[in-house]
Structure formats: C-alpha cells, structure tokens
C-alpha cells in the first residue's frame, strides 16, 4: 500500500477533481469559478498521463493531455474576456447577482 502505484495517482486526481467541483459550486466570484475549472482540467490530465504510464498505451495519453492543456488555455482566454464584459455591464462579477434572466 505504501509503494506508489497507479491507485495513488488516481486518488490524487480524484481529490483534485472533487476540490475543483467544490470551488465551482461554492464560489461567488466568477474568476474563482474559473480557478475551480482549471483544477478539474488538471485532475483529468493526471488521469490521462497516469493511465498512459501504467497501461502501456505508449504516448497517446500524453498527446491527449497536451491537447487538453491547449483547450484550457483557449477556454481561460475566452472566459476572462466574458468576465470582463460582465464586469463592464453589471459592475460586479459575483455569479449569484447576475440574474437578469430570472425576472
């Protein structure tokens, strides 16, 4: 059990994933929600690379992890632009106060 194997990496990534979900669900600031999404993407990447190492799939898992990193960069740029626009219009980035669709 103390010897590090596949399970250890998977547990670290699942804990990271759950913390990311927690951040996305509980945070009010939109930028903090983005940080939670980055945590989730990192957890997925750890899974890809751990299975690539221990499953003997060659380098395919690492390629997919690289693609995920590229997508995360694009997502962060777009999301930040949207957050800036929201701040310009509502002068707040708290996701619970932006509820004009409600009424």
């Amino acid at each position, binding site marked *: 059990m103390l010897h590090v194997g596949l399970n250890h990496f998977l547990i*670290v990534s699942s804990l*990271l994933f759950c913390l990311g979900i927690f951040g996305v669900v509980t945070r009010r600031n939109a930028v903090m929600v983005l940080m939670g999404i980055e945590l989730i993407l990192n957890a997925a990447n750890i899974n890809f690379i751990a299975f690539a190492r221990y499953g003997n799939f060659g*380098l395919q898992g690492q390629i997919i992890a690289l693609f995920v990193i590229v997508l*995360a*960069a694009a997502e962060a740029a777009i999301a930040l632009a949207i957050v*800036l626009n929201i701040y310009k219009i509502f002068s707040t980035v708290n996701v619970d106060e932006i509820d004009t669709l409600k009424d």
Partner: protein
Amino acid sequence: MNIYDIIFYIFALATVGSAFMVVTTRNIVHAAFYLLLTFFGVTGIYVLLTADFVAIVQLVVYVGGILILLIFGVMLTNKITNVQIKTGSLQLFPAAIGVGLFAGILVSALLNTEWKTAAGEAPKTTLNGLGFLLMNEYIIVFEVLGVLLLVALVGAASIARK
C-alpha cells in the same frame, strides 16, 4: 518506501493541500498564489509519471499563461483599494456534503477496481515519440487546435474590447 515514494507523497500533499486552500481561502489573490503551488505539484506528478515534455508545457502554459491571465482578471474586475478583493461562498454545507460523498464513492470505486496495469519500460525522453505522433497520427487534430487557438485569441480580443 524508496525516494520515489517520498517525492510522490510530498508532491501529492502540496497539490491537494494547496488546491484545498484555493477553494477555501477568502482572499482572491491568495487563491491565485495557492493555485501556483497546485500547478507546481501537478508538474512534479507529471515528472514522476515520466511525462517530461507535458510537465514543461504545464509549467509554461499554466503558470506562465493561464495563471497570469487569471490574476489580470482579478485585478481588472476588483477594486484593489476596496474590500472587494474578498470573495464570499454560497451553500458551503450542502456542497461539502455532496462533494464529500462523491469523493468517497470515487475513491472506494478506484480502490475496489482491479486495474490491468502493465507498466512498460520508462522511456528516456518522450520528445521524440511525441513529435512523431503529432506529425503523423494526430496531424489533423494538431492543425485544428492551431486554428482553434487563433479563433479563441481573436474572439477573446474582440469580446473584451467591445
């Protein structure tokens, strides 16, 4: 328990601990700096999994790019001189219960699964293989991602300056 295990536990503890601080600290700037520590821990885990190139990319893109972007987002949308730099949390207890249950199910499912592991020989460097894969099997994905990055860049600029 050899040196590999000890290094893994250090990195795992740094990663999970700082990730916990990211989602619980009330100061946004502190959260951004804890996120830096998380990314470093994940980088160390990649190195332990013999993914050297992905680890470097993680450092360059996440720490050098995404984190800076997030800090810019914090600075542009909060009044630094104000108390606005603090952030609140919603539904802490229901979320904690739900996420805790989910984590328990996930971890117990992982531990009870017999993974068919066949760890091959650790490659000396992954650069050669990654380059061949990117230029042969994954060339279309590679090109499409390049176009996507360009579109995202132009789109982000045009959204933000409106």
